[in-house]
């Protein structure tokens, strides 16, 4: 498809230039997770019990942080008009931007999560499941978030509005993601949760880009 990889490469190139955004996302993730023991107390068994929830909620909020950078810069400098006019179907263009956003936010979150799991006493045995659940879950967060980011283009107070739109839609990935880790921790079988997470990803992959495209078309009217 004309320019799909070019669009992903350009967005990643821009993400590298403004690497502050990715650093901000990772810093927020680390900070949020580290703060919880101060609130809950350092007892290992208590922390281990709530570790899956802490890690997943912190990752979800961190991914939410950089969502509005997905379409807003292009909307403001006129690039979005040219993307709409390009030969690349708008759904694929939206997917390209979502993929670039995931690579620069969701992926690093998943990769550094084991380091943080230690801070909240997550069982070593559950670490691989943590990474797998985040690798499966964060793309879904970017896909759903992409739709909300496109919907709120041109709105007043886009940041607050974006998180209000997106949080109820993030409940399923959170439930299955944290559920997978907890199933592993309590000796259960995480495969069911992971399969459900994968199903969510497949559905979001199929539907979200076109919803985001429709929203972009509304924004560039």
């Amino acid at each position: 498809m004309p320019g799909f990889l070019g669009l992903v490469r350009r967005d990643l190139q821009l993400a590298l230039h403004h690497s502050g955004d990715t650093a901000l996302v990772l810093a927020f993730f680390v900070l949020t997770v580290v703060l919880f023991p101060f609130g809950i107390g350092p007892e290992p068994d208590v922390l281990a019990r709530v570790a899956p929830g802490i890690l997943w909620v912190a990752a979800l909020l961190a991914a939410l942080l950089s969502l509005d950078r997905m379409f807003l810069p292009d909307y403001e400098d006129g690039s979005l008009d040219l993307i709409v006019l390009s030969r690349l179907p708008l759904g694929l263009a939206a997917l390209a931007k979502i993929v670039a956003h995931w690579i620069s936010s969701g992926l690093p979150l998943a990769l550094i999560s084991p380091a943080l799991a230690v801070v909240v006493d997550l069982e070593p045995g559950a670490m691989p499941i943590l990474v797998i659940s985040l690798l499966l879950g964060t793309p879904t967060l970017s896909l759903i978030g992409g739709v909300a980011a496109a919907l709120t283009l041109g709105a007043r107070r886009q940041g607050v509005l974006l998180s209000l739109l997106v949080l109820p839609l993030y409940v399923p990935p959170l439930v299955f993601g944290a559920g997978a880790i907890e199933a592993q921790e309590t000796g259960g079988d995480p495969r069911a949760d992971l399969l459900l997470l994968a199903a969510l990803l497949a559905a979001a992959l199929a539907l979200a880009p076109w919803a985001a495209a429709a929203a972009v078309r509304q924004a560039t009217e």
Partner: protein
Amino acid sequence: MRPVLPDLIGEDLACRRGERLIFSGLGFRLPAGGALVLSGTNGSGKSSLLRLLAGFLPAASGRLMWGTQPVAADLAGHHARLHYVGHADALKPALTPREQLGFWSALRGLSRRQAAAAVEAAIAAFALEPVADWPCRWLSAGQRRRVAMARLLAAPAPLWLLDEPLTALDEASQAGLQAIVVAHRDGGGRVVVATHAPLAVAGARRLVLDDYHPRRAREPVLPI
């Protein structure tokens, strides 16, 4: 022999932005090689008409036809045959003109080799060689405007929609642009220009948007 392309025809076009009726009853015909100059007071709808012609904005009423085929029927096809240069330059401060022009021509469907050649031609035509590899944040407004204009040549398209192309351009660049427009029209292309400056475009039909301001005499149609 110049390929005989159908005319771009607008019949009784009306445009609504939000709940405001900008203009109505607007008609024109733009043959291959033709030119249409839009003028009128601020807020009379020049930019809105350009965005309508580009297919961003559906006409509130009336029809926009490419020959006999309504534009709305094949929007992707219509987008593929036009360039739209709006007020914003669509340039990323961190990237160089060469990178951005290459990116935009790839997005217009050119292969890597074709894109490279077209980009070099565009850079030469707009005298951008000295700054071709500078990050755009180092460029002046005029230079950025020329890079935005260079997109016109970085990928071939018969219909050019230009919104205030002359702003921020110095005399030499303005003359260069006019020469490029003339060459484009000789090659069978056509151009619609919204401008205040008296752009000397030979044989252009002038359209004053204020003439199509929705008359107040009529009962204001309840904009649903």
